[in-house]
Structures are given as C-alpha cells and as structure tokens.
C-alpha cells in the first residue's frame, strides 16, 4: 500500500502510457459526419498533429521513444523519415504534415476541403427539381425584393447618375402650379430622354417650414411612438404638411424590424417568418440581422429548406465579408452539418489563395474536439485528416485559441508531448495563463517535475490554478523518499505561500519535510495548521505520528478514534517507530486532469486548498 517504488513505477507507466491516436480520434471509424468513407489505409501508428519547429520538452530524457504519438517537426525528421513510416500506400495526411513544406500542406488541405459538400445545393429540399412557388422557397422572389440586392445595383446607380444631371426645375414648377397637363408632358419628355429616370416622389410636398430634423433625431433614438405623436401634432398645426416619404418608409420598416425582434425574442417563429414574407424591404443585404432572425426562425419551425435558401441567398448576393462569415457561423449553429457544408462550399477564393470560409468550416471539428477534451466521448469522432486541416490553419493563422484547443485535446488523449507542443505554441503566439498551465501540467505528466516547478514558480501568482499546481509540485518533491535539501529561504517562501492560500496539502507536505529534517516543532505546528484548513490523511497521520513520538498516547487514541475509519494510514501509528510514509501527490493525476479541463472551459472548481489526495483507492 505504501510501497513507494511501486507507486512511482505506476506513475511512470502512466507517463509513458501510449494511447494510439487512431483510437482516440476515431481514425478507424468508417463514416465521418460528412459522410465520407475513410480508407482503412491509415498508418498503423498514427501520429499526433503537431506544430512544427517546437522544441521538445525533455531533450535529455529518452522519453520520446516511449511516447509514440509525439512528433514535433524536428523529431519527425530525425525519427520518422516520411518514406519509412508512410510506405507506398497513399496517405498524404497524417504523419506527413510536420515534414511537408507549409505551402504544399495548405494547398493539399484546401483541395481536400469540399469532400462531400456541394456548393449551394439545398440538402433539405424535398426534391432536386427547381423549388417553386407557394410561399416560395427560392428566396429572392419570396423574400427579396426585385429592386434590392447586388444584381440590381447597376441600374440603380445609373438612375442615380441621371437624377444628378437631370434638370427638374420645370417639373417642380408645374407641380407647384398644379399644372397637371404640362407636368405630364414634362415627365413624358424627361422619360423619353432618360429611360431610367423616375419622377421625384416629393413633387407635391407642399413648401413648409416644418423641419423634420427633430423627427429624425427621435427616429435615431428608436422612439418610434414619439415620432408618430410628433407627426400627428405637426399635422394638427400644418394640415398641408406630411412627413417625407423617406421618413415614413424608414419608420415603417423600423417598426416592423422591432416587431420582428420582439417576436423572435418571444420565440414566435411563425410571426417572424410572416413579417419577413410581408416585408420584402427587410430581406436585403443592408438588413442582415432581419435576415438572420428570419432564417433562424425558419429553421426553428423545421423549414430547413427555406432557411438554407435564405443563407444561400446572402452568400450569393451580399458582399460584406464580416456579415458573410457571420452568416455561415450562424448557419453552423442552426443547420445540420450537410447544409452547413454546402454553404461553406460557396465561399469565395480570397486573394491570398485561401477559401473564404476555410476557418469557420472547421467549427464543427473544434466543437467536437472541445467536447472530447472535456471527456465527452459522445461528441463524435475526429479524423486525422480533419486534425491535419485545423493544424495547418492554426499555424498559418497563428491561432492561439486553436493551438490551445489542440493542447487540451491531446492532453485529454494523454499525448502529453503533443499537448505540450501545442500549449507552448499557443503561449508563444499569445501569452496566456491557461496555455502556461497546460505546459506545466504536461511537463509534470512527462516527469519533468523540475522544469514544471521552475515554470510554475515563475508564474505562481498568475492564477489560483497555477498556484495550486505549484504547491502540488513542491509538495510532491517534499514528500519524496529522499527529498532534495531545500534552502531555508525557499522553505520560508513556501510556508508563506501555503499558509496564505490555506493549502492543507502544501502545509502538511511541508510538515513532513520538516519532520524529515528533524524539525519536530515546526512540523507539529504545520500539521495542526494543515488539519485546521482541512483534515487530510497526510496532516492527520502527521499529528498522530508526532503525538506517538511524544508518547502522548491519549492524543494518538483520540486521533485514531476520530479519523481511524477514514484514514487507513493511522493503522500504522501504533508504536513509537510507526513507519508512515506519506504518499506522493502524484496519484492525483486522474483527478486533476478533469479539473484542468473543466477549468479550461471556464468553470474551474475552486479547490485551491488542495486536499491531500493520497487517500484514493
């Protein structure tokens, strides 16, 4: 039970435990969510996807040989000659990545992307025949106005040009004179000259000294009711006045837009759709939010076909890059993956040769990796190909978040080395305590405790999590069979730290260390402190051992009575020579791991006191 060597060997085995990535990533699975059948040609020993050119952690240790999934670029060249590992059978993705020149890799990934996706094809339509009428599924006729959208912008522009140069003086004069005959003749004349020209809408607006400015300001504030009231008041005073067509139209649209937003908030999906159908003026690129609300409402009512068409319409018609991207992102949350993939495939080629939606197309993968990293195997499978694509992108775009995601993903797969590389890459791109924490945890799991401790100490006050890890690391070393002799200055610092953070674990570990240094008085004080923070086996046994040494048998009995059931270690404290060996902290790994991952996703369980966990099993 307390055999230290066996414990240590178990830990070592844990470090070196090799989980084949193919197993973890589901490489052996036949189908992927995209419906692609993967050839069973994946190399027998699949390799973690890694950022290149990252220094390996333990250059000295012979660990790499054991940790098969770990192949940083430098190692990859040294240890896994491409040709050797990937024989004639074509499997361009996978282990090759790290060695392939970056540019080639990107191109390969780009080509590989639209596997099953058919750009713009509506996977939810009942048939492949052209969709037609009722509340027409084809967007532009049902929702879009014919006068809106990019395709119409040219005539609109030329009409605008005409308007700028056309002399409407006579026209306006006839209108004010109500000389309808001459007005009609002038319109006929101008239309013959400028076929795209339309008579201005405000021809008959009476000259008035009513200023619309306050109305527009009210409108700008969203006080639509106020605009109505003010218009009514102004009309009461000026019977001939009416608000400009522009204001009336914008007010009308704004009110419907507001109503749509409210209906959406009330989850009245059908109402949202009705409003969109009856207000084509809202279904334009300039009113992207209304389009998004409508598309989501359609999807919520299971009308995926029309939702898809609406998204597709945006991608066909609208040009704003951010909005196009957001459209695809929204679709990814709403549409089943097949539809999403077909939208992604509509992405344009960017000047730099990449595809417009390359990044967002990997969102489903990211979310699966995230779920898997959180220990949810139901999240689905990820394939090496997919990982490869994301890895290339993450490096190309220097994405710290993707790199960190890789880190936690591989961490969950116990590919410590790969995880370390990714964390380290992420931290290089953007200094981040989480990545730092990942690095420290990986180093610890790779048995590079000294390096881990150095890094943790350097950043000990950065986050409570790092503090906790640091205390664990030091406590681990202190409770080693032959702990390294520590400088009294370091001891003082550590004591201050554990007391300040009320760490039961750290405090009792320090106690055991002092005890091993024959400093019984301080050890006793620290055991008491530790138990006062939280009773743990280490702290309680420490108290018992000291009491036994002092032959305070009644105290020993009292402790045994109180904690005997909980801590089997107390059973050994019978006689003065009781040989209690405090267990190492290390077995906590199994417990620590989900903690760290939970933490990654934001709800780290506040457990800073660090109970001494050598009680398990």
């Amino acid at each position, binding site marked *: 039970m307390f055999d230290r060597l066996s414990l240590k060997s178990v830990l070592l085995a844990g470090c070196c435990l090799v989980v084949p990535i193919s197993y973890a990533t589901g490489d052996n699975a036949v189908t992927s969510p995209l419906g692609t059948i993967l050839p069973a040609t994946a190399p027998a020993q699949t390799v973690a996807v890694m950022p290149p050119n990252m220094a390996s952690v333990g250059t000295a240790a012979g660990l790499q040989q054991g940790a098969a999934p770990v192949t940083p670029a430098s190692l990859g060249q040294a240890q896994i000659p491409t040709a050797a590992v990937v024989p004639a059978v074509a499997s361009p993705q996978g282990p090759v990545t790290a060695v392939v020149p970056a540019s080639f890799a990107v191109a390969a990934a780009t080509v590989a992307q639209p596997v099953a996706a058919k750009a713009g094809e509506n996977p939810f339509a009942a048939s492949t025949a052209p969709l037609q009428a009722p509340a027409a599924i084809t967007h532009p006729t049902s929702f879009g106005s014919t006068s809106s959208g990019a395709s119409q912008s040219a005539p609109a522009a030329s009409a605008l040009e005409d308007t700028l140069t056309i002399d409407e003086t006579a026209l306006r004069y006839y209108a004010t004179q109500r000389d309808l*005959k001459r007005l*009609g003749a002038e319109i006929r004349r101008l239309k013959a000259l400028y076929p795209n020209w339309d008579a201005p809408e405000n021809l008959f607006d009476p000259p008035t000294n009513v200023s619309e400015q306050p109305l527009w300001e009210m409108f700008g504030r969203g006080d639509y009711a106020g605009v109505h009231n003010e218009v009514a008041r102004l009309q009461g005073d000026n019977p001939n006045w009416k608000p400009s067509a*522009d204001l009336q*139209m914008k007010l*009308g649209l704004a009110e419907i837009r507001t109503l749509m937003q409210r209906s959406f908030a009330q989850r009245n999906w059908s109402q949202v759709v009705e409003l969109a159908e009856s207000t084509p003026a809202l279904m334009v690129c300039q009113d992207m939010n209304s389009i998004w609300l409508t598309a989501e409402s359609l999807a919520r009512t299971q009308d995926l076909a029309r939702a898809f068409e609406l998204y597709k319409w945006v991608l066909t018609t609208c040009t704003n890059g951010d909005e196009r991207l957001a459209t695809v992102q929204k679709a990814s949350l709403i549409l089943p993956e097949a539809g999403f993939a077909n939208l992604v495939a509509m992405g344009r080629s960017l000047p730099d040769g990449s595809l417009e939606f390359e990044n967002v197309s990997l969102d489903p993968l990211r979310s699966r990796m995230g779920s898997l990293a959180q220990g949810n195997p139901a999240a689905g499978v990820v394939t090496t190909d997919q990982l490869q694509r994301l890895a290339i992108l993450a490096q190309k775009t220097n994405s710290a978040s993707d790199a960190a995601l890789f880190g936690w993903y591989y961490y969950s797969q116990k590919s410590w080395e790969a995880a370390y590389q990714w964390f380290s890459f992420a931290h290089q791109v953007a200094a981040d305590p989480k990545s730092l924490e990942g690095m420290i945890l990986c180093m610890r799991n790779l048995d590079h405790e000294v390096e881990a401790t150095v890094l943790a100490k350097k950043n000990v006050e950065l986050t409570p999590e790092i503090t906790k890890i640091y205390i664990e690391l030091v406590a681990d070393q202190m409770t080693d069979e032959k702990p390294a002799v520590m400088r009294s200055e370091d001891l003082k610092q550590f004591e201050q730290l554990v007391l300040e953070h009320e760490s039961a674990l750290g405090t009792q570990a320090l106690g055991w260390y002092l005890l091993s240094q024959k400093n019984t008085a301080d050890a006793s004080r620290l055991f008491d402190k530790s138990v006062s923070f939280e009773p743990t086996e280490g702290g309680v046994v420490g108290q018992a051992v000291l009491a036994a040494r002092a032959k305070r048998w009644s105290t020993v009995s009292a402790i045994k009575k109180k904690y005997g059931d909980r801590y089997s270690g107390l059973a050994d404290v019978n006689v003065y020579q009781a040989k209690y060996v405090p267990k190492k902290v290390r077995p906590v790994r199994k417990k620590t791991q989900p903690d760290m991952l939970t933490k990654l996703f934001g709800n780290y369980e506040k457990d800073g006191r660090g109970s001494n966990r050598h009680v398990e099993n």
Partner: protein
Amino acid sequence: MTFPKTKGALLAVLALLSGEAETAKAQVGADIESPAADLAAGAWLLYQHKFMTPDGRIIDNKAGDISHSEGQGYGMLMAVLANDKRAFDLMWKWTRANLMIREDGLMAWRWDARENPHVKDTNNASDGDLLVAWALLRASQKWKQSDYSKVALQMAQTISKLATAETAFGKVLMPAIYGFKAGEQPDGPVVNLSYWVFPALEELAQASRAFPGRALVKTGLSLVRDARFGPAQLPADWIGLSASSPKPAQGFMPQFGYESIRIPLYLAWYSTDHPDLLETFSRQWKRSAGTKGLAVIELTTATATAAMPDPGYRAVANLVECSLGRPVNIEEVSNFSPTDYYPSTLHVLSLMAIAERYPTCLTGSL
C-alpha cells in the same frame, strides 16, 4: 339653335371615328401622346402622392386608411397608363405580398393595418381581381414583361372558373366566390353591374381565348339594358336574378349610387357602340343638374337621397358626355384636385378613359 346641335352631332361622329383609331393604338400598349394623356399622367402623380404609401399600398382614406384589391387594381392600371413602372412594381409587390394570400391565385379583398391579421376575410372581390389582371396584362404589353401576362391570364382563368355562373340571363360575373350565389342570398344569384369592368373583360378575352370575357360582356350589356328600375329607369347597385326578370336585390338598398356610377365609366371606356345605354345616365344627371350635382337615387321613388358633390363623380358624367360626342366643361374635368379616395379614383380613371378613347374631347377643338 337646332342647327349647331346637328352640326355638333355630326362632328361628334367624326370624333368618334378618330377616337376609335386612337383606341386601336392604345390597346397595343403604346404611349398616347396627347394633352389628355399628359393630363392623365400628371393627375396620376398627384393621385399617387395623396393615396399611395411608399410601399405601394393604395389607401382608402375615407374608410380608415384600409386598402382593397380594387384600389390596388385601379392604382396599377393608372400607373401603366402613366408609364410609371416604378410605382406599378411597388403596388404589384405589395399586392402580391399582402392580398394574394389565397391558394387559388385571386386576392383577398380587404386589408386593414389596424387589424391583426391584416386580412380578416379572405373572400375575393371579382372586380378587384379583374382590375389587377387587366393592369398586369396591359403592363406586360407596355413593358414587354411576359411574366405579368402569365399571372394576368391565370387570374382571369380562375375568375372564370370560380366567380362566374350560368343564369337564365346568360353568363354572369359573381361579385365574389362566396356569399352571392343562389342559396347564399334570398334572391341569389345576386350580381353587381359595376363589377363588369367591360374594357378589362374585352382585353382579357382578346389575350386568352379560354377567358369567356365576351359572353360576360354580352350578359352585362343586356342587364344594363334590362335591369332598370323605378321611375328613373336606372340600374340598382345590387341585382337579384332569381326571378324571371332582374330585380333590385333584397338584401341591399334599392338604389343607384356609389357602386353603379362605375357602370357608365366602364361602358364609355369600353366602347362607343352603346350611346343608348349611356344616354340613360346622362339624362339622369342632366335632370339632377338642378340640384347642383349627382346624387344617390332611391329607385322605387326616384328620390335623390344623398348628394354626390365631389368633382370626381362629375368627371364620370363628363366622360359620358365625351363618349356621346357632346362638349364638356374642359376646365372642370381637367382640374383634378384630390379629395377622397373613391371620387378621386373615378376622376383619374375618367381622365384616363378620355385620354385613351376621346382625347380630342379635352382639346376643345371639336
């Protein structure tokens, strides 16, 4: 005194002939270039300014700013004649989105912004459907857009299928699909002659052999001739056809009023071949000239019950005079100044009918 009159009649015949030539031109959708046409186009602009919302809805200001299929049809028709495609498309878009919510391709007749849903009653109004179909047909001819005529002919076909009936008096146009058939009215079928948009029936029949427009025109004309009641010998707004001869419909006031005034409007627009029928109306209006204007006539006693003083109604009377080849008060009919929706509509329509059929009537150069 008699001589000039005879001379006038002679000239009127000449005018009629030339008018027919103009008509032939108008019907292929060409722009009419005449002061009368310019006036009609100018009047449309003013009408649009007053009654069309920015999104293409024609509002009936007198009925609480509601809209109906008929108003959309009138507006679209006017826009075609005024060569205003922008307004036409706006109105058509609004109509399609808000009124064409029936499954058969016809329109719900009434739309109210204050109601929710805006359309409470999805029944149609056959004249509204006819007007929109006609406007679409003319728009397709004028602007060479075949998709418009496709919809127009589909609508006509549906009207023929769902809103016509065979009666002892011939094929009739039912006012709506529901509510007027035998069994739905005590003296049903009940018809409304002002729903017979004669020129629309004729032009839709020209465009589609399947549409029984001419049979409907025939019945309509014979009903205008025969369904006249009381001392004034005027048609009733609503007519019951259950008996062996037409009678004022039991469920409605037996009167010649706001509805029936459109009969001479459409008739004069349609053809110059029926001066006898038009004379009936002209006579009545001359008679009531003493009371300074048109009025709703209670038929059993031929009493004027409510004045119709609006210049828009006078414009219809002037159109009839034009059709009959008689001089009109040009200044009066030309002076379009919007009042309420309905009479203003009749005014612009009269100007358009004059421009199309009797353009010289407004030049004063008989």
